[in-house]
């Protein structure tokens, strides 16, 4: 590992500045009235990457720049948008300091296409889109607008392996003639409230232990024990001796037996972002089986 003295701090500072400017640009970037921005990737970040390389892709006419103008940008951005499939990757130049009203260089070279076209190229012609993965950094994404293969290709990890997303069902809802089907139907399309990653399960699958997760910034991270205690209704229910339940996306239904805060550095391999103090909130669950049919 390089010593602190060997780190080029000026380079790091410059990179942070450019990243911030690109993020600002992206936050104001509106593809059109109907299309949404799904992904922005800063690629070919190395110095001297301003020269355009021929990708071999069919190119659409450039917009926002006069014909014949030099087609180089110092900072390259791939932009994927929603909407009908496009037939190529269009490009345009925008000034990096647009917010300050400066029209000159340095420029951002924007490569724009649809999510569908990019996904198709990724499947059928991966060599053609290789350039977008060279020294690339994702600076914006909307995971619900991207296909799993694009998320994988750019190594956008939003949840740990084996995460089960669940909704909390309070005991005043359970036992009122609700079935798994009606509970699931009422939550269709709604964001799951918490996630669990099992760390132990009994051979008969009747009980299990799991690390509790929450969704922050589109990523499922282990819950802060204090945070969940401060803000969660189901934790408060359990604390007050009232039963609380978790309904998994797949239909599994659990009753919470207890919560436990544990110090477990070894759990860092099971989560996508370890807790700073290696303390995790573990939940003990017991499978329960509500009636299949509503009570008569």
């Amino acid at each position, binding site marked *: 590992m390089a010593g602190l003295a060997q780190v080029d701090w000026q380079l790091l*500072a410059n*990179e*942070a*500045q*450019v*990243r*911030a*400017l690109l993020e*600002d640009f992206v*936050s104001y970037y509106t593809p059109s009235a109907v299309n949404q921005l799904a992904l922005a990737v800063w690629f070919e970040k190395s110095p001297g990457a301003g020269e355009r390389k021929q990708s071999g892709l069919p190119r659409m006419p450039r917009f926002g720049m006069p014909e014949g103008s030099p087609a180089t940008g110092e900072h390259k951005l791939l932009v994927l948008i929603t909407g009908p499939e496009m037939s190529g990757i269009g490009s345009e130049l925008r000034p990096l300091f647009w*917010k300050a009203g400066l029209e000159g260089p340095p420029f951002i070279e924007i490569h724009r296409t649809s999510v569908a076209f990019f996904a198709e190229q990724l499947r059928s012609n991966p060599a053609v889109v290789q350039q977008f993965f060279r020294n690339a950094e994702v600076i914006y994404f909307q995971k619900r607008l991207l296909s799993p293969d694009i998320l994988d290709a750019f190594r956008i990890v939003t949840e740990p392996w084996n995460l089960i997303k669940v*909704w*909390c069902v*309070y*005991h*005043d*809802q359970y036992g009122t003639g609700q079935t798994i089907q009606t509970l699931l139907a*009422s*939550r269709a*399309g*709604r*964001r799951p*409230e918490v996630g669990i990653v099992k760390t132990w399960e009994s051979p008969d699958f009747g009980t299990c232990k799991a690390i509790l997760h*929450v*969704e*922050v*910034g*589109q990523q499922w*991270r282990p*819950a*802060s*024990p*204090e*945070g969940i205690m*401060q*803000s*969660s*209704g*189901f934790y*408060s*229910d359990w604390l*007050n001796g*009232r039963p609380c339940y978790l309904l998994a996306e797949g239909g599994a239904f659990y009753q919470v037996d207890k919560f436990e805060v544990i110090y477990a550095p070894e759990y860092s391999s099971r989560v996508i972002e370890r*807790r*700073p*103090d290696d303390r995790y909130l573990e939940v003990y669950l017991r499978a329960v089986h509500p009636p299949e049919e509503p009570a008569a």
Partner: protein
Amino acid sequence: MIDTLKSICEQCTHLKNPQLDFIPAELSRHKEIILRDLRELVSVASNGHEKACAMIGGCVLEAILFSFLQVQERRVAERRGRFIFDPEQSLQNYLDIFNKWFGRDFPNLQLLDILVDYRNLVHFNNELNSPTDECSKAASTLLRVVDALIGELAAYGRIAR
């Protein structure tokens, strides 16, 4: 969930005695609005008004993050490389900035993505397409989160000064 809004509110000490020292004197209008909204939040919660509690809770959450990030503009710029506070951004954007640049300062405070969904229950269609207990969950969660946020920021304000 049996905890009534009234009982939750009684446990929320920061809501009833808010320390907003993280907002400097020159932003007195910010403080006035937040204090007024907090009084109204406590009032509607104490009376068990779920929808009003969820709506005002969402407003206060946005107002607190707005004020905090505006005040901390220089600190974000130091950490990020560059930052100019934009008062026209969305609650989601303020949550993202807070979680990204202040997450390490507040390891016990995770502002969840679902808070935006709760605030967005202001749109009738969103509530129509939600489970019947969504408004109740939104009200109680926002109440607790705003209380925890004020508590954490008050402590941060004392340290940062």
